[in-house]
């Protein structure tokens, strides 16, 4: 036996294991190469973008110049977009997480008139395609004169039926009735119970909903495209799309954004998400697999 084992462990180019590992590595290249291209291209001037090979650096390093150009263009409109995106995303994510948590807790642990009906409505709305809702939302928001106000983005983004559903499952699973009852017997008020008992136990679910709503808002393009027409209200997605169409229509002069600005602007827009992704991996995976695996 002993002389067979080392032989079979020897590197064999066409063994199943080698092929499998080669596929894994090739796919890693496929998934990461576009991001590598973004990193490399952010160091290039427009001339180098056109003349030099895409996956290697250009003749001179234009990283600082590119950074300067995105923040100085149009009286610093990019900074407005960055600030808008951060503001819209943080407020709608915190709002969504808070109201989903309170609603999920109530649906899981209380019985009250109308509970089944509301729960049914929320479960059905989980299946309603979101972008289908955007055109009707625009029509109503323009009727309510909320177009070109931050509310037009923030308030609708706080409504996350899936967040309520997730918190309901989470509360049902991780909040023992005995603890709640013990607290009530001790005479604690409902507000006190919520803050001191419920919230700490629901914290992981809270963070998951917070993260997913944050990312959904940060990445949202269709809704802000419709509800904002003034550039000073744009989030990054709409602003970058605007720069891109300026760059591709090939206008010349100070009034037009250029390709290197779109690339640098894209990189800056992505950095917070990549950082959040790497730091909060567990919650990303949890949010994705909660509905599908536990079900």
């Amino acid at each position, binding site marked *: 036996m002993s002389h067979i084992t080392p032989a079979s462990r020897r590197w064999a180019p066409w063994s199943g294991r080698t092929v499998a590992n080669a596929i894994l590595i090739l796919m890693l290249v496929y998934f990461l190469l576009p991001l590598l291209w973004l990193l490399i291209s952010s160091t290039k001037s427009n001339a180098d973008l056109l003349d030099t090979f895409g*996956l290697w650096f250009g003749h001179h390093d234009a990283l600082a110049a590119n950074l300067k150009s995105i923040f100085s263009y149009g009286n610093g409109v990019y900074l407005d977009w960055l600030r808008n995106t951060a503001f819209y995303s943080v407020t709608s994510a915190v709002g969504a997480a808070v109201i989903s948590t309170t609603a999920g807790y109530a649906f899981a642990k*209380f019985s009250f008139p109308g509970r089944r009906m509301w729960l049914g409505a929320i479960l059905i709305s989980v299946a309603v395609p979101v972008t289908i809702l955007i055109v009707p939302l625009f029509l109503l928001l323009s009727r309510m004169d909320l177009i070109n106000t931050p509310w037009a983005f923030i308030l609708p983004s706080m409504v996350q039926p899936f967040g309520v559903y997730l918190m309901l499952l989470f509360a049902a699973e991780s909040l023992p009735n005995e603890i709640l009852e013990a607290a009530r017997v001790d005479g604690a008020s409902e507000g006190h119970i919520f803050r001191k008992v419920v919230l700490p136990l629901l914290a992981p679910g809270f963070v998951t909903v917070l993260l997913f709503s944050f990312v959904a808002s940060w990445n949202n393009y269709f809704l802000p495209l419709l509800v904002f027409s003034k550039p000073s209200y744009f989030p990054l997605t709409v602003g970058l799309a605007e720069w891109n169409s300026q760059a591709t229509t090939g206008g010349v002069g100070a009034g037009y954004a250029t390709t290197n600005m779109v690339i640098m602007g894209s990189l800056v827009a992505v950095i917070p998400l990549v950082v959040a992704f790497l730091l909060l991996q567990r919650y990303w995976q949890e949010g994705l697999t909660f509905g599908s695996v536990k079900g």
Partner: protein
Amino acid sequence: MALGVSTTNQALPRAERTAAPGRSRRRRFKSIGTPYLLVAPFLILFLVFFVAPIIYAAYVSLFVNRLIGGQHFVGLANYGQVLTNPDFWDAVRRVATYGVIQVPLTMLVALGLALLLDRRRLRGRTLFQLGYFLPFAIPSVVSALLWGYLYANSFGVFAQFAKDIGLGQPDLLSPGRILFSIGNIALWASAGANMIIYYAVLRSIPAELYEAARIDGASELRVAWHIKLPLLRSSFLFTGILAIIAAFQLFNEPSILSASAPGSITQDYTPNLYAYNLIANAQQYNLAAAVAFTLAVGILIATAAVLLVARRKKS
């Protein structure tokens, strides 16, 4: 996918369930004030920004706006106009073609990766997993911009590479190819997320199940086919339905790519793009509402059809 509280309760220890005889484990605290206070913020916003828009749009879709006299009730005439518009059907055919190719392909790639990662003695598992999953964190607008540059005819990496090895430049943004180019962007962005879901299911299968099969001499392929695939059924259904819904709603990628390929992406390239342009360029709100509703009904029918086929196959 749709499951009640009851499924999770079954997991509770038996002792707890029997601890309070005569009372259900699912008992909830009876109260009116507190729960209403807790659900009110969500429900109010839900009614105003979710239910009301749908009702309002349904109402608006029954009118036309005339230059003289304003809004006129026309019944279902707008729907007739949408359904007899060949451009609308072209858009539907386009997203259907896209869905039929892109959705299974993404699921297959994700499945392949999940199975390859779920092997014993694999080094660098976390690195692979993170790398595949990372594009999911990139906003679709940025993904579309990024791939749009890679596809570009003048300085795109593909064009540069083709020139270097002496081939003609492939026009990846031509009308005939752009749908596949969009499909590739979506695959790149979502395959990793699907992989995470499948992989989590595979990890939850008890190892003894594999060991028994391996002792019986089953190959890795047979284990995958006979043990792993059947257990992934409901995850396939879940991710497949989400992907089909997303395919019908295709908007961001074609909207971004239309700047660099205006000849390939028309104003009504997808149903959502058509609805958007009705609002943004033509102020035809009534017709846009009818398009949104037609699309929503179409998606519901497609989803129901998939569920029905899946159920029939099971029985």
